[in-house]
């Protein structure tokens, strides 16, 4: 897949942007706080119609404006030239695909894969499990509508159960919503198990290309509870009721699952150095890209937020060598990386305005 044109209006600090994307290497340069990451955030919306920063749609609308608009022209391996437009209003989002309004947003999710590599990713290993779970959910949901549906149902039923726990709902009411949690929970756990196993293979391979020094990376799914069936989950929820009543929330379930990255068989969170952690996280994103490609046949666009500049020239060369299928790369940084064999289309970003600059070798 490739972005050919990205047009934005009132998207955060970007009042009016129309960027013609030539080729497959694009670099947005400028001081921090000028709008580089906002541009990447807008591009990333095409994948799951949500911000990779986890931002509320309302915060993406420029201050004082009624709505934000984003229009994309894409080249797609299977769909050909595609036009996607997104309108964000305080009430929600509307999507049009080839000028036709999309009634079921799930029909678009995952069709236009992008993968984000961000300098904030160093929080990925050390941060709360929710950070890793969010990434895992997004990765699986983008390629599997059934996963997305189970995830939404589970969280909906979980919120209803938590509400009952706070308001002292009757056992029959609790049981009614626990049944609605149990089925989706079993689906989530089974699909997370299978997904982690697949991702683990891609992760190992991507890491080996990035760090060929005999280090072995691994990825493991750490379920909060091993749930073999909906019946088992249903029983476990019923059993947890009295304790959950005291906590006023549901203590156990797939909403507490985690993902663990390992290096040479040991948890990377504790044992990997800063530099090793950075490579692990980049490898994870490349694994995500390979996973999307394997599932959909579409090569994802890589959105690199302030990442390439952080790598030393040797690692950067390996990064380029490890890319599979010549993906389009849209990168940001304070200055374009020099002498890494890529010819960049450079955009200068200043105070919410983006202007195409000259090509740099």
């Amino acid at each position, binding site marked *: 897949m490739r972005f050919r044109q990205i047009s934005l209006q009132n998207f955060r600090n970007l009042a009016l942007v129309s960027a013609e994307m030539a080729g497959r290497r694009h670099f947005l340069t400028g001081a921090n706080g000028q709008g580089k990451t906002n541009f990447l955030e807008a591009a990333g919306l095409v994948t799951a119609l949500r911000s990779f920063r986890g931002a509320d749609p309302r915060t993406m609308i420029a201050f004082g404006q009624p709505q934000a608009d984003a229009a994309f022209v894409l080249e797609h391996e299977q769909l050909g030239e595609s036009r996607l437009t997104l309108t964000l209003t305080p009430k929600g989002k509307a999507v049009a695909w080839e000028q036709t309004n999309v009634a079921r947003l799930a029909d678009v999710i995952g069709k236009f894969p992008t993968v984000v590599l961000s300098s904030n990713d160093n929080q990925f290993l050390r941060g709360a499990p929710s950070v890793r779970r969010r990434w895992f959910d997004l990765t699986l949901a983008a390629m599997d509508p059934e996963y997305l549906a189970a995830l939404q149902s589970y969280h909906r039923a979980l919120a*209803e159960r938590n*509400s009952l726990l706070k*308001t002292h709902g009757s056992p029959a*009411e609790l*049981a009614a*919503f626990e*049944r609605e949690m149990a089925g989706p929970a079993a689906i989530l756990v089974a699909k997370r198990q299978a997904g982690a196993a697949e991702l683990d293979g891609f992760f190992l391979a991507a890491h080996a290309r990035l760090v060929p020094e005999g280090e072995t990376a691994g990825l493991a799914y750490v379920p909060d509870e091993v749930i073999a069936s909906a019946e088992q989950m249903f029983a476990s929820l019923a059993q947890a009721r009295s304790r959950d009543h005291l906590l006023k929330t549901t203590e156990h379930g797939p909403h507490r699952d985690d993902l663990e990255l390992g290096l040479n068989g040991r948890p990377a969170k504790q044992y990997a150095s800063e530099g090793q952690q950075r490579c692990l996280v980049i490898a994870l994103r490349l694994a995500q890209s390979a996973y999307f490609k394997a599932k959909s046949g579409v090569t994802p666009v890589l959105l690199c937020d302030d990442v390439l500049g952080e790598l030393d020239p040797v690692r950067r060369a390996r990064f380029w060598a490890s890319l599979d299928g010549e993906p389009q790369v849209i990168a940001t940084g304070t200055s374009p990386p020099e002498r890494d064999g890529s010819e960049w289309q450079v955009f200068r970003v200043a105070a919410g305005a983006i202007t195409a600059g000259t090509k740099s070798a």
Partner: protein
Amino acid sequence: MTPALEELQKQLKQLPGIGYRSAERLALHLLVERPERLPGLVAALHEAARSVRRCGRCGNLAEAELCPICADAKRATGQVCVVENVPDLAALERSSAFRGRYHVLHGKLSPIHGVGPDQLNLATLLERVATGEARELILALSNDVEGEATCHYLLECLPKSGVKVMRIGFGLPSGGGVLYADPTTLKSALDGRRDYS
């Protein structure tokens, strides 16, 4: 703007699907463009407010103790189709797919929105089962989390024998109720109902 016009606009704006602009248009239409329509509308509103109430048996709209469907002896088949609200009942009636009676719950369980069993029209349904008037329940609630949970809850409340419980299943748009389904879909959903107990 006069205070009376403002008040009329305010009242209209609170109606579903009416925004600020439509409210203004409707108010000016009634007061300026076609004032001769006003008395008829006022009379209709007044009469509806006076005479329309809930059917004491099924919860449908009625102008007597019973709604026209409950009052019709030909529809006493023992089959009762349980729906969330009156528009769902109306959609099923339009499709002519069902010739029994209905029961309108006036909602579905949703603790988040403060809807518990006490907020639903449940007690009369249990009575209808107890008296034997309802021998087969067809649950036509939406197939989202809250609709399904309401079905589980209902099943818990019903006696274990003496009543057959069915669930209309396939073909309904996910997350939507019967309201959004076309007549053909509704008919096949009813025909394809499956045992729920």
